[in-house]
């Protein structure tokens, strides 16, 4: 058994949302929705901030059973070169996007740190905000990315159940549960300003995952009190490889989980991606969710030539255009915001200012 950090097992940190998650009746759901909506409105108003992912590379050294990019998948491997990255970014910019999440697989020689650093540098010249979702790095590496203009890191623990984690991650650098768990802290120590965490819902028992995720968010907020912390709610989607999740996470549970997070952590961004259906996304916008991805391609590249982009990490469910999605938000009296950050703030926090 590995020694888990105290916060991960401290049930007191998540006790108040457990009853909310275990209820199943419609009335309690509706009541929770009303509270979540009120809490969202108070803190965030009617703003939904938008971002878009750009998959730089699907080279990967890990064997995550649930992922379309796992190293035993036979689909062709590809990475964008500098010219291609620029073209993709310009195509994204034309859609109005100003906040980009750059993605890669686990570290490989084809797509390693230097490749990612150059991509961040390039992106920061074109987009006001750059965040990454890539392989775990050292404090020094995060520091270097922060200096190039990277202000955010997204990293999902996938599952907070260490035994299940070991089974699902068959090989590669990602096998180390604790190393991954500590990654957001290394990024913040390196001067990255905000971190996004999440569990890939469906891999382990959902209530336990939700409680552990809440504890993680609370711990980060308390310890790195100057950092931005956001929580995402990815559900497993169909992907190449045909993985069948062990647990079904239905819409009602996912909605309940998001709304419970909102009522208990009123100040943090809660994020929903295009993994979810248009109906679910439109319904949850403003009911707790404050940040959403838009017009996503989950293939390498894909904004320039959508048709020829090859295998995806997972299937997108909401494939509406940026325009159509914004119109849907406006119809709900919500304001989509494409630029919520300015590059003037891109410098990493100086050492003495970091928590």
């Amino acid at each position: 058994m590995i020694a888990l950090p105290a916060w991960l097992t401290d049930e007191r940190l998540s006790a108040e949302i457990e009853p909310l998650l275990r209820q199943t009746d419609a009335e309690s759901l509706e009541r929770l929705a009303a509270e979540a909506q009120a809490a969202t409105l108070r803190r965030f108003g009617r703003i939904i901030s938008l971002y878009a992912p750009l998959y730089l590379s699907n080279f990967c050294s890990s064997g995550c059973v649930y992922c379309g990019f796992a190293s035993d998948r036979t689909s062709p491997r590809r990475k964008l070169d500098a010219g291609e990255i620029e073209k993709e970014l310009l195509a994204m910019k034309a859609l109005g996007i100003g906040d980009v999440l750059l993605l890669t697989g686990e570290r490989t020689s084809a797509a390693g740190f230097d490749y990612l650093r150059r991509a961040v540098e390039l992106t920061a010249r074109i987009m006001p905000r750059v965040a990454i979702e890539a392989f775990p790095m050292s404090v020094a590496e995060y520091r270097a990315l922060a200096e190039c203009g990277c202000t955010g890191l997204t990293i999902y623990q996938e599952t907070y159940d260490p035994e299940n984690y070991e089974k699902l991650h068959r090989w590669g650098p990602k096998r180390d549960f604790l190393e991954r768990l500590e990654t957001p802290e290394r990024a913040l120590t390196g001067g990255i300003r905000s971190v996004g965490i999440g569990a890939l819902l469906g891999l382990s028992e959902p209530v336990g995952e939700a409680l552990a995720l809440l504890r993680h968010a609370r711990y980060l907020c308390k310890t790195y009190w100057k950092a931005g912390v956001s929580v995402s709610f990815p559900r497993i989607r169909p992907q190449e490889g045909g993985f069948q999740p062990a647990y079904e996470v239905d819409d009602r549970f996912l909605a309940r989980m998001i709304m419970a997070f909102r009522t208990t952590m009123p100040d943090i961004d809660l994020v929903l991606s295009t993994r979810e259906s248009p109906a679910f996304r439109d319904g949850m916008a403003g009911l707790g969710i404050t940040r959403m991805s838009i017009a996503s391609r989950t293939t390498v590249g894909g904004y320039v030539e959508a048709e020829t982009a090859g295998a995806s990490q997972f299937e997108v469910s909401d494939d509406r255009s940026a325009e159509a999605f914004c119109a849907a938000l406006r119809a709900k009296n919500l304001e989509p915001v494409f630029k919520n950050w300015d590059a003037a703030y891109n410098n990493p926090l100086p050492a003495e200012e970091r928590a």
Partner: protein
Amino acid sequence: MNALRLGSYTFSSRLILGTGKFSSVPAMIEAVRASKAQLVTVALRRFNREQAEDDLFGPLSEIEGLTLMPNTSGAATAKEAVKAAHISRELSGSPFIKVEIHPNPHHLMPDPIETWEACKILAAEGFIVMPYIPADPVLAKRLEEVGCSSVMPLGSAIGSGQGLSTSAMVQLIIRESSIPVIVDAGLRSPSEACAAMEMGCAAVLVNSAIAVARDPAAMASAFAKAVEAGYDARNAGLMPRSGSAVATSPLTSFLGASS
């Protein structure tokens, strides 16, 4: 009750008593005994041979299991507070110091900048530093970072009896702090002390409300019960407040029927 931990010290009582403003030393001693407090604050004063009976060290040292927490009141700057702390440690033999720096003699609001300076120095010197502060969540984290053993945000102005007028800010401090949060100043009634404990405070510090009560010992005992009740209630898990009424046009109809 679980123990209150401050530095390497543990206390079963979560009521800290101030010893000022009492009508007499015996009245104060009686109140301290009735409160079952294990930590009391004292202030440094010049010795006056005409009022030698006002010295508190002797009478307080007769109460078993009592630890003294000298304050730095009178200090208007960090430098003065550090000096007062050194002299106080000499006298009390205890590492506790309540850092209290109020440059304005009327409203007695603590100076956050001088307080932070003094705390940084005293924590590095090994004191158990307990700063009296405005209810400011950022200042509280800054003080935690420099090694304070607790933070003591004010409920309202010293001696004002306005209760927990800073309630929302104190709740933020509690949510963010990794060190005990103790409400100090402004409490008037035991119910307010109880509310502070229910909110998640680790302890409360009370002085005026007890000292100026018609029967200080009885009031001290009432505060002790309230603090204990509030602490127990917090641990027992309060029932959630009833939420908003269910909307007439349901917010969750997009989710379809329950599966």
